[in-house]
């Protein structure tokens, strides 16, 4: 039992970068944009957040700048795909390559350094009164750091925003049929910019969680493909923010499974276990695509919009 609790608890931690990045991806795709630059925006957030943490020892400043870094990455993408209507897939891939290079460059001088004590203290676990006393759920969800709690709040707010507000409705309409939204006087370009930048900011935060809290030091390629899993998790969550809870923590669990099994004395090839999240991703995508309606996603995803075009 204890093994399970500690496993689930660790899964929530490992899933948190995915949670932020997947939410970010959902906002991107709801605006009709396939952004394959998630990995790039994450790592930009990771390196900028970590650098600022080193320089200032201020956790809030680190998170804020990480979000801004992600958003700036997204801004490049937005200018290219919204305004210049460049191919989204190519632009996204380029953003990932750019982001990785940017992070390697900026991270050269800080490799191996670890987070200042003030930051560690800020992100230490806090038990929430009452809730943390619930058996199983308490230790798994409510004895966590503040960044994780922030994630919970964001997921719920995102869901409310998307499904319960007028802006969310307008945004969903853009992803489905931008020309219909436009004709109903939704400012399509503005919406696209705002939500692409916001998505980028979330990806940047996801990266920052890795460097600031999870690893607590800087390593090159710190994101290690998490951005790609997040792209798949957007589909796995069927573009629904609430379902990100499930998908992020499930895949968080998968990503630490190998390590956990080994420490429990079960020996399976590390390489096989490393493949697990990706294999499950493929499997999930196959299963989802069997039900056409579920896997459909926003209808105009990936198609550039220009008002005067038919």
């Amino acid at each position: 039992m204890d093994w399970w609790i500690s496993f689930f608890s660790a899964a929530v931690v490992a899933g948190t970068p995915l949670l932020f990045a997947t939410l970010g991806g959902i906002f991107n795709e709801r605006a009709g944009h396939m952004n394959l630059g998630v990995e790039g925006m994450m790592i930009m957030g990771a390196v900028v957040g970590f650098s600022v943490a080193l320089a200032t020892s201020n956790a809030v400043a680190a998170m804020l700048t990480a979000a801004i870094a992600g958003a700036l990455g997204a801004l490049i993408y937005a200018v290219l795909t919204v305004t210049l209507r460049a191919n989204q897939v190519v632009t996204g891939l380029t953003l990932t390559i750019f982001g990785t290079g940017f992070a390697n460059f900026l991270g050269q001088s800080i490799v191996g350094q670890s987070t200042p004590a003030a930051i560690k203290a800020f992100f230490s676990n806090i038990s929430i009164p009452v809730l943390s006393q619930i058996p199983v759920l308490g230790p798994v969800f409510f004895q966590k750091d503040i960044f994780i709690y922030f994630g919970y709040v964001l997921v719920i707010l995102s869901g409310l925003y998307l499904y319960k507000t007028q802006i969310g409705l307008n945004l969903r309409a853009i992803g489905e049929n931008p020309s219909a939204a436009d004709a109903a006087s939704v400012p399509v370009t503005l919406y696209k910019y705002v939500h692409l930048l916001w998505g980028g900011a979330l990806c940047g935060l996801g990266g920052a969680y890795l460097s600031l809290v999870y690893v607590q030091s800087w390593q090159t390629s710190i994101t290690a493909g998490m951005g790609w899993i997040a792209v798949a998790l957007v589909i796995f969550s069927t573009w629904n923010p609430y379902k990100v809870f499930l998908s992020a923590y499930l895949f968080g669990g998968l990503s630490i499974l190998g390590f956990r099994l080994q420490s429990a004395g079960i020996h399976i090839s590390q390489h096989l276990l490393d493949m697990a999240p990706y294999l499950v991703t493929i499997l999930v995508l196959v299963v989802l695509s069997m039900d056409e309606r579920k896997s459909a996603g926003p209808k105009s995803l990936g198609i550039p919009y220009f008002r005067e075009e038919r």
Partner: protein
Amino acid sequence: MDQVAYISMKNIVKTFGKVVASNHVNFSVHKGEIHALLGENGAGKSTLMNMLSGIYLPDGGSIFIEGKEVHFSAPKDSIAAGIGMVHQHFKLIDVMTAEENVILGKKGLFFRKGESRKIDALAKQFELDVDLHKKVSDMSVGEKQNLEILKVLYQGARILILDEPTAVLTPQETRKLFAIMRKMKAEGCAVIFISHKMNEVMEITDKITVLRKGETIQTLNTAETTPKQLTDLMVGRAVDLTIERLEQPAGPELVQVQGLTVLKREGTPALQNVSFAMRGGEILSVAGIAGSGQKELCEALAGLQKVKEGKILFQGEDLVGQSPKEIRRRGISMSFVPEDRLGMGLVGGMDMVHNLLLKQYQDQKGFFLNKKPAVEKAAEIKEKLEIATPGISKYPVKNLSGGNIQKILLGRELDSDPEVLITAYPVRGLDINTCHKIYDLLNEEKKKGVAVLFIAEDLDVLLALSDRILVLANGEVTGIVDARTATKEQIGLMMMGQKATELEGTAVVENC
């Protein structure tokens, strides 16, 4: 009229690349007026209205509302000025409910309470049948049309633009729409109505403006003109509007359909025990209220629909269970113009030649495509159907006007030298000159000895053009009558489900 026009458009110019869609167009509408915009396919009607609704930016000219010049840089400006447009291709979000579509684009962070009641009241006031909680994807075209109107009324439109609203409506739905238009007129609104159906235009409008090749030709009072004059103005020369039935003895029976039963997806019957025969050199029409099984009948004949029971004999051989490709190879060709016209048959981003190749390549040998025959065919079809396109190659068909897209679809089907031709709603959205071209083409096929199955909505045309008329009601054949002696009333009754044998004075050609 000495009062200032509600809207007036002066010297409007709009070009798309080399195509001049509007060439110094002048157009004005007054309050309390229903004004028709007439013109051939590609004349620039939709383009002009899209400039009024802020979708397209004019290259030149000015727009005035009640005498004051306005500049629309986005649809929201036009909506704010009280203009509401129901587009030729609906602008609705399929996965959302009617209510969500109506409130789309509103300002403010949260949904306002009590909005449903307001929308409901508005729907009641205009007698619009809309179920606010129904998803658009589950709606019929008529319901979608109503929803579009409700949407623009909710946005506060005082100037209503309807771009070919009746192209896919049933006569009953059209009547309802007309009632709404009259109501708006009575409230001092202006309605701009685009339609290719002359009888509708004559019935409902006060004024008519004719466009030809992007230019305003004339504005007339409806009461002082005739369909003949209008058509001549549209085309630019005198055109013959009589529909002729080619009288010739019918040939041998080519197709026998026996006891055909087809189920819908939900398992209820779409066709029940349908039997009839098609003869070479004859046009057999199918009449029926929309959704009485016409689509399923076509698809069953073309091998696209699973058949529950029954036989389709072609020259004695059963076609049930054969692949569509095999059926096509035997000389049975089908063209179905769906309600959503772009949805089926053509690839929007490809040019005309490549769209023809899509079907032609199947008959080609070898690994590489031979484009030459398709290029020739494209030129021929363009000529024959007078397709308005800047080029048959390198110009994506989606840029063409709605009617011209359809002509390509049809031209391609007619071209394959079929023995049996099945064509459903071929004239949907076509201008009347082209409609007559299509009728002539059908007659030509008939003359060649082809068995033609013609599914259409306009009873006058069915009666004038075909040899026999098969009437479907709820998936059952209520009778097959001689088009020379049948009347509109009889067919109307049969469409409602009365058996021909129970009607007095009906010449039943064939029992089933």
